[in-house]
């Protein structure tokens, strides 16, 4: 009991917290792009599940986690485009259409898994890639610089996204069509094209999130994401549509998950309560963000389809 407060255990727990945060971070970062452009995509979890299955299955068959990740990205791209068609071109009610995408992903990923794999087999995972020198630093090195490459890339995506959203023409167009699509249209910006791009980025990142989750665990099962895609949507709101806010929320979630996992493996949480314990990370994340969130305004045109002259 006392040894859970030892330095090694604490470092290991925090480090696993960072790993656990990554799928959520990718998914909610992607969702932030879509929402900034005015499109709420409730299908994230479905895209994650299909990305997870695709990533797992490819890795299982080819032994290459990188190929698995690529397939996850590809699935995300296709489903992102599909979501764009539904929300942007077909002007669907966004509060509902995404649920369809979710249910499709949930059912399809399980069906494919049952048909193609059946019994869970462990697949290869990403190699750790300690960063030379930095990973030698005591404590900090193990915590931050001893992960696999996708994890570094995910955290790198945060500052990159901040720059894209705030400092590029593309980012400005995303913000403009999310706030006032009529204005953007009247200035000659294609609302449709910008929203397609933003929603598809969201799909790609959700696919990547699923793949990273499944390949990281080396396993797939029905409803592997456990509704993380929905937590991701909540994180976007509480993270005030900013990459940094989204990252903070994901880290809280990852850390709490890691602690719960630790308590479970140590038997401190009895097995019978493990289902109950599974919701702790989500609950604490949402509570933390509710407390921390300053009142930022949602993009004005969020969930509103755009019709010219309407």
């Amino acid at each position, binding site marked *: 009991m006392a040894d859970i407060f030892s330095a090694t255990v604490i470092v290991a727990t925090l480090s696993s917290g960072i790993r656990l945060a990554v799928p959520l971070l990718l998914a909610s970062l992607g969702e932030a792009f879509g929402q900034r452009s005015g499109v709420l995509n409730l299908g994230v979890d479905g895209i994650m599940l299909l990305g997870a299955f695709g990533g797992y299955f490819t890795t299982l068959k080819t032994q290459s986690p990188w190929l698995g990740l690529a397939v996850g990205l590809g699935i995300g791209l296709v489903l992102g485009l599909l979501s764009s068609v539904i929300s942007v071109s077909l002007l669907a009610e966004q509060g509902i259409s995404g649920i369809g995408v979710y249910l499709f992903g949930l059912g399809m990923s399980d069906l494919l898994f049952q048909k193609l794999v059946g019994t869970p087999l462990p697949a290869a995972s990403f190699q750790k890639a300690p960063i030379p020198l930095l990973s030698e630093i005591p404590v900090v090195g193990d915590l931050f610089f001893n992960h696999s490459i996708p994890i570094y890339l995910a955290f790198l995506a945060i500052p990159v996204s901040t720059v894209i959203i705030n400092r590029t023409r593309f980012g400005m167009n995303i913000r403009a069509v999310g*706030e*006032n699509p*009529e204005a953007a249209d009247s200035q000659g910006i294609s609302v449709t094209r910008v929203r397609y791009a933003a929603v598809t980025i969201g799909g790609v990142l959700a696919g990547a999130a699923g793949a990273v989750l499944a390949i990281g665990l080396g396993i797939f099962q029905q409803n592997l994401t456990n509704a993380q895609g929905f937590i991701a949507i909540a994180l976007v709101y509480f993270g005030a549509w900013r990459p940094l806010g989204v990252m903070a929320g994901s880290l809280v979630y990852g850390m709490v998950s890691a602690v719960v996992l630790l308590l479970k493996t140590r038997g401190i949480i009895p097995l019978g309560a493990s289902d109950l314990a599974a919701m702790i990370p989500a609950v604490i994340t949402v509570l933390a963000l509710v407390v921390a969130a300053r009142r930022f305004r949602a993009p004005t045109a969020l969930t509103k389809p755009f019709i010219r002259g309407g």
Partner: protein
Amino acid sequence: MTQLLEMRGIVKRFPGVLANDRVDFDLRAGEVHTLLGENGAGKSTLMKILYGLYQPDEGQLLIEGEPTRITSPTDAISHGIGMVHQHFMLVPSLTVTENVAMGTLSKRGRMNLRQVSDRIRELSESHGLAVDPDAYIWQLSVGERQRVEIIKALYRDVKLLVLDEPTAVLTPGEVDHLFKILRGMAEAGRGLVFISHKLHEVLALSDRITVLRHGRVMGEVEAQDATREMLASMMVGRPVRLAPDKPPTETGRARLTVRNLNVMGDRGLPALVDLSLTVREGEILGIAGVSGNGQRELAETIAGLRKPESGAIAVDDDDVTGRKPSAVRAAGLAYVPEERQRDGAIGAFSVSENMILVNHRHPPMSRRGFLRNGEIRQRSRQLVDEFSVATPGLDVPASNLSGGNLQKLILARELSGSPSVLLASQPTRGVDIGAAEYIHDRLIEQRGSGSVAILLISEDLDEILGLADRIAVIYEGRIVGEVNAEDADRQGIGLMMAGVSREDA
């Protein structure tokens, strides 16, 4: 002068409506050509066709003599056409510079916002359009936002600029300033299309005026040959009286008293500050002011829809402060709300159901909880006739009525209870001239009855000047001055609307 634009025989149909019926319109460089007409006359449709937002069903469009098809705003922009929309096309969370740069930056490469903001500074200096390029749009006043819209057009160096009802949100002083800038732009060789229904503004700014009615051109006149009455008659299709005759009346006792009212707005900031006023029977007190200075909160508080922080409201001798809307009504208040579709009627209900909305609980409209259809229909029929509400029947949904007819319905219902106070908020906004004339006559008639005190809240200064016996000007939630109608002048009230108090004015 060069012919910038020619639109020939433009036809645009919407389901059930002929929005533009063989409309001809042209614009020369260096002139201001006004499109004048009532709501729904087809002005905006025509301009949306010009800007590529709609495609015409028939007709031809020539830009500098060249037949042209404009299929999108991008197309319009590339032909040197700019548009200042009635609802500003700005992104509140972006800066002035970013809004101006939006869509103008080259497809590749980074954004060079420094260059854009330098150019904005130049333009704002040379045209007298004071705007800070680094400010966020949400920080700006309405007048400033409009300047940003104009700078957007200047930045793109448009040859032809369309302004859709640009003065709706401005104080009279701001309007004068805007007109100076627009005249300057015309003198510099640009062509301007001005869309409006405010007659004195049209006469002040235009070179030529084209009047539209029901999608058709009623005529084109030189502004110097036109008068307000003539233009109004062309818009309506019959002779129109612009100012109602207002016989002198005897004012009696105070029927509505408001004392030191303090009210919070929706954002938790004070919306009304120590506001006091009294309205006597037989008079109309007009509240003038620019939109958003507390008018809505004042009306809602009096009607019992918003709780005051402190202060007192009395209808006759009943203290109704903080009481429910039904209690305020029972005390004798009739209320014609600003948002008639939202607050004044239930669109999905029939005309007759709407007629009895406020008194359906009482006999003879209902008995033991059951509505009495016979009585209701009879009463509705009578009111529809009396107030000449044009409706295909008593059972059609109220949402089918035009703005003017819906407003007549609401007025009929409100006056049918013989109120002691009538609170009318923006009673003719967005209403056609004919219905506005009718509503004005009714208000004057109520005033003449000698038993009703009328509080008229309006952002239309002409309406206030034409109807009110006394005029109080509201600015940032305070009454900054009050004048008798006979001493009122447009300029003095305009200054007060901008916050200059009576003593300074």
